């Protein structure tokens, strides 16, 4: 039997969990690319090329980095901002996990219960999940693979995600910096970002800051 590949969808209304198709999580020092276990070093360059080649690369920071639980979280947030600026990529927050009522504003936020709405609305073709609790990331990654053609990258601080198209594990501040450095290195080597021009939105207590 051929090995299952965790590829972008749309796969099906109810895609199989990658784990049930024989995909295993990487060990420390490793990552997985579409279900294939690789050395982590290989994954940095692969991820950086994917991101630079995307039209709408987007980072979805989750509550673990959006909220200042401690100094480490704040430093990770800074590193994520630097990564977004290096590519450049949009930042769309997953502020919490509640099924937001009456609806989310798909342009400005993502919700794990219907992440496809944000991906469809913004035509996102490559995204990174970072700082999202694993159980919610699993839910969202599976929905995205089921209903969209977005390539998902999980930067997980725990053991990684089979349901992402590619996944790092044990993500730390240093590893975020390393991905940024890899993006910068590729750009110096002549790899150009294919991202469509955009202006990162900004919010205030009153709403979106125009201009």
């Amino acid at each position: 039997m051929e090995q299952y590949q965790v590829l972008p969808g749309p796969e099906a209304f109810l895609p199989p969990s990658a784990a049930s198709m024989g995909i295993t999580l990487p060990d420390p020092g490793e990552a997985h690319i579409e279900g294939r276990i690789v050395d982590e070093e290989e994954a940095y360059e692969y991820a950086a090329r994917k991101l630079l080649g995307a039209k709408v690369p987007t980072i979805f920071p989750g509550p673990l980095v959006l909220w200042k639980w401690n100094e480490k979280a704040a430093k990770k947030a800074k590193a994520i901002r630097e990564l977004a600026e290096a590519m450049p990529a949009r930042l769309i927050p997953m502020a919490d996990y509640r099924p937001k009522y009456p609806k989310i504003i798909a342009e400005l936020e993502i919700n794990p219960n219907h992440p496809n709405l944000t991906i469809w609305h913004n035509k996102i073709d490559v995204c990174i999940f970072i700082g999202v609790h694993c159980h919610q990331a699993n839910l969202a990654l599976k929905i995205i693979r089921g209903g969209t053609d977005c390539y998902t990258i999980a930067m997980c601080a725990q053991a990684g995600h089979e349901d992402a198209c590619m996944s790092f594990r044990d993500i730390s501040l240093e590893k975020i910096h390393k991905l940024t450095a890899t993006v910068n290195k590729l750009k110096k080597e002549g790899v150009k970002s294919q991202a469509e021009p955009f202006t990162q939105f900004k919010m205030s207590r009153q709403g979106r800051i125009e201009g």
Partner: protein
Amino acid sequence: MSKEKIQLSEDLADIMPPEYQEMVATATFGNEDRSWKDIGTSKELIEQHSLCAGCPESIAFRFILASIPAPEDSVFVGSTGCTSLVFPHVGVQNIHSLFGNQNAIASGLQRALKLRFPDVYKDVIVLAGDGATVDIGLDMTMQSWFRQEKFTTICFDNELYANTGGQESGLMQKGFVSKMAPVGKKFEKVRLPEIAFESGCHYVACLTVSKPNRVEQVIRNAIYVSREFGPTYVQLYTPCILEIGKQSMEGLDEMKESEAIGQRFVMKEFMTDEVKEFLKEKNAEQKARKKAAKAAVTA
């Protein structure tokens, strides 16, 4: 934990939706003397709710969330029912339990929190409807009282199963006819406040939510007493306007009528003498704090 913990990472703060920025800036975390009077001037811990227009339960929710003394150190345990529709929209930790299981879940949670945070008061608050509290979950409710578990149980008493179409519940009044109980209830409303006190609750109150001051005082009393003494119980009349054939604007009138002298929701409180003394001291402390805060503002 206090307001210092409710902060955004500076580098990503400007992409956060407005309601979170508002919460960080003006919500009353870390203020023990927070009150329902903050509603309108500070960010409430409840977002737009998904209950019916004019539902008294939504008013009760607002008052309770504005009254709990330490929302940052509180965990609500809810159960299936109208209340569970609101929990996804509140800014306080909460757990949804299986129907009727709420007091069992809360027992384990409270004990675990006590072990994990021995030096901090972690308030566990059960909030469930009358079906979960008095009918299907009565076993779990009462066993937690017998065991003297240190948490507060709040029952939203709407006298029937509201979100499944109006079936008869133990707290329904005798003779009441509802959509799914067409022959009328054949026995008296269960006297749970009295049963709660006899079962070991140290503080019990039963009232409507027509008067926010009263609701606030009762909720604070129940939580303070549960920290020091043991289980406490609060029963709040939150009529289901849909199931009793009222209009959206008539919820408040219904509550006022039912708390008039001689009616079934005349406010009642039960407490031990020890608790009475304790609450007297607590109230004096609170008054002194408020006076000092007022003096500091005017100085």
